[in-house]
């Protein structure tokens, strides 16, 4: 048993020279870094677009909610029956409006969550 162990230890191959290897490795890492930057940039742009869309939805939703709550349809003296109808339907379906706002708020939270994890 000792013989084979000794043989193995005594005949361990020599380490290869660094030579060209590090140059090639550096070149590959540069390529990877370029791809990484492009992918990260695209992800960041996509995330920003998503956040803008969600925030816009949230702000419009909140404004509509305030409108519905502070201006009941009966008090409006609008000539346009179409506007009145739309406003009435909004008032009668305000639960849906609140639901949409809640979903948007949760979605915003979810979008920000991976960032927080990465920061940790």
């Amino acid at each position: 048993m000792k013989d084979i162990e000794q043989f193995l230890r005594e005949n361990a191959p020599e380490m290869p020279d660094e030579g060209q290897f590090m140059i090639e490795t550096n070149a590959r890492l540069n390529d990877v870094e370029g791809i990484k930057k492009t992918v990260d940039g695209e992800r960041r742009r996509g995330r920003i677009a998503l956040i803008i869309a969600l925030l816009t939805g949230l702000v419009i939703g909140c404004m509509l909610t305030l409108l519905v709550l502070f201006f009941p349809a009966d008090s409006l003296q609008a000539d346009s029956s179409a506007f009145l109808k739309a406003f009435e339907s909004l008032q009668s379906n305000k639960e849906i409006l609140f639901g949409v706002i809640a979903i948007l708020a949760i979605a915003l939270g979810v979008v920000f969550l991976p960032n927080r994890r990465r920061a940790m």
Partner: protein
Amino acid sequence: MTRERFISEVRACQGRLRRFLTSLCGDPALADDLAQEALVRAYVNSGRFIGNFKAWVFRIGYNCFIDNLRRVHEPSTTMDSPEVMHVAAATSSDEAFRHEELQRALVLIPEKERTAIVLHYFEDLPIKEIASIMQISSGTVKYYLSVGRDHLKQHIRL
């Protein structure tokens, strides 16, 4: 991990990684390719790295070697295989002959036994670290070392 720190860590362990992979696959050019693939994978995931860099890179290198085996459906290496013939043809001295005989014998034993033998005897790694690199238990590493030594003895004239 910054690029500079990554490079300095790589500089410190690249020789041993390449020697490990060369001993596993028997082909220095393929070993260098596998080592570079491993280092690229390591670099991409370096943000998540915590702990022993050398052991981590060795584990990735070993996984690259296994992936490569699966890709090419491990050719059954025999004493007549080109890489073995190539090594044997370069015999010039006693020492060189022993190295070649060992390399020839290594490629003939199963890949897990070869890995355990190379990591333990060439890289001088403890059983626990080998177990973590190969993702098996310490007992299994000891088993592979024992069986690997027996298999090697059949191919080496001591």
